[in-house]
């Protein structure tokens, strides 16, 4: 029996992790930009004001640039890797960063949170070793 090719190689995994990191930066930029508008309840009535203020906040544009870079890198990943493999690995960084905070900064982490993190890591591992499907 021919051994199954893993769905991912090291270079692709590294790219996905880098995209993860950049995406965290972009999300924080977006949150900080929406907060900076001073509007917490967006309705149809104040949507224009919200959008106009948002467009004037530099943080929004830093986030947008991050997303453009992410898009280019992501397309190169998708050329080779199944979407159902690349996508679950896409947000693993949200757990890797808290994990680093605990290991490096000795922050407290509850048992439940540990279990959740282990789940995500095992899940990501399962997905990445699932067999490659090259549909061309």
């Amino acid at each position: 029996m021919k051994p199954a090719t893993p769905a991912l190689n090291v270079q692709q995994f590294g790219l996905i992790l880098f995209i993860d990191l950049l995406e965290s930066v972009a999300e924080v930029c977006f949150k900080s930009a929406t907060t900076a508008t001073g509007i917490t309840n967006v309705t149809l009535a104040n949507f224009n004001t919200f959008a106009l203020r948002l467009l004037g906040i530099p943080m929004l544009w830093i986030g947008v640039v991050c997303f453009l870079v992410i898009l280019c890198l992501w397309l190169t990943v998708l050329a080779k890797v199944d979407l159902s493999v690349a996508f679950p690995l896409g947000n693993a960084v949200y757990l890797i960063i808290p994990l680093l905070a605990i290991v490096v900064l000795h922050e407290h982490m509850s048992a439940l949170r540990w279990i959740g993190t282990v789940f995500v890591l095992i899940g990501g591992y399962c997905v990445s070793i699932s067999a490659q499907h090259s549909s061309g």
Partner: protein
Amino acid sequence: MRLKAFLLIVFYEVCSTLGQVAFKKSARKFSAAPLGTARDYLAFLRRIIVMPGIWWGIIITAVGTVSWLVALAHVDLSLAMPLNSAHYLIVLLASYVLLRERMDRMRVMGTVLVVAGIALVAFS
């Protein structure tokens, strides 16, 4: 307010998934392209950026992102992110139905573990 944010996030998830499917469908056409050097990557980008599917993907994703931004104005990112874990299941389904990617047990189990893990972290 919570319900509105919830609906906005679901709308974002659906848009974003359809955008990903459009990206994947376009990128798939170049799956044989060599990607080793920086030059390879640039050549790949030049070819793919002119494909209509990419632009549809960008438009759909942009519409979804507006919805996501409005949702973030309502609720904290720490609440919005866990809601987003459903996203993985939607993408898994779309990959199977729309892209006909193979689903082996390992892949489905792995995705379910990721979703469960995020939910656990979110509610701990």
